[in-house]
């Protein structure tokens, strides 16, 4: 989708902060009517720019104290199908994110565990037993922030 104007960008910025804002609230804060805001939000949704919601929770408060990013290299490329690996890895409930990447690793994973020993169990029983898994690198996350991205760079395009 191209041709976003500054009003669309302001809407994206507000919803990226808080998706539960109503069309009336958004309209008020950027100075357009509620129905105009609603139409624009619907259009951004239909074009796929607004791609659903992300619920961010305090994992530690819920008893999940450890988030680990894994880089995985497949050991036997050609012998194990990517589909088999992907099917098995996405079925692991503690694996939140699976991305196929190019570089030093073939896949990157985000895993949430209760504590380090829970992570060790997941690593030994679930990850190391995946079909075709080779080199694995683990990095324990200490902090995270998400930024709104280059919304400013879209203005006037």
């Amino acid at each position, binding site marked *: 989708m191209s041709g976003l104007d500054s009003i669309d960008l302001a809407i994206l910025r507000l919803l990226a902060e808080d998706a539960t804002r109503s069309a009336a609230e958004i309209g008020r804060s950027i100075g357009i009517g509620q129905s105009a805001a609603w139409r624009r939000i619907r259009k951004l949704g239909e074009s*796929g*720019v607004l791609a*659903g919601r992300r619920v961010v929770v305090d994992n530690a*408060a819920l008893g999940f104290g450890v988030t680990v990013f894994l880089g995985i290299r497949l050991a036997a490329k050609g012998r194990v199908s990517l589909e088999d690996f992907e099917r098995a890895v996405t079925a692991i409930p503690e694996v939140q*994110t699976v991305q196929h990447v190019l570089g030093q690793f073939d896949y990157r994973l985000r895993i949430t565990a209760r504590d380090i020993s829970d992570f060790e169990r997941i690593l030994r029983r679930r990850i190391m037993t995946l079909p075709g898994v080779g080199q694995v690198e683990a990095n324990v996350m200490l902090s995270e922030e998400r930024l709104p991205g280059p919304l400013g760079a879209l203005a006037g395009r």
Partner: protein
Amino acid sequence: MPDATDRRILRQLLADPDASNSALADRAGVTTASLWRRVERMRAAGVISAIRSRIDWRALGWEVEVSLRFTLDKTNPRALDEFIAAAREVPEVTEIQTFLGSVDLRLSVIARDMAHWQQVYRDRILTLPHVSDSDALMLVSTIKDSAELTL
């Protein structure tokens, strides 16, 4: 502290964040009014820290996403803070994580295409301070991306 009902609601909300309140209430076995009240309470308490809209940058024509991993020069005690402050100023950076491990830090960086990526990399990434080593993983596809917890 979230009780068993809160956890049931969270499990449903994390599994399907786009479902309507009435659908979520149904699945969690509570009334819509009670669901709304409990979600608001968990937001106020910070158990739910945010409910955000996802922006699909590919739908906006930003085709390239790279996961950049950095090791910093830790002889400088300010290295991490100064690196993060500089990375926040780069508009194409969408995520910053710090780690305990062989990698100190990771950035998600997006670009319109490979030519634009090359420009961002040369002008904004290679100029970040205190880097002793870095490598890049180019995103091919996202197979799973969920906030679900085994609550």
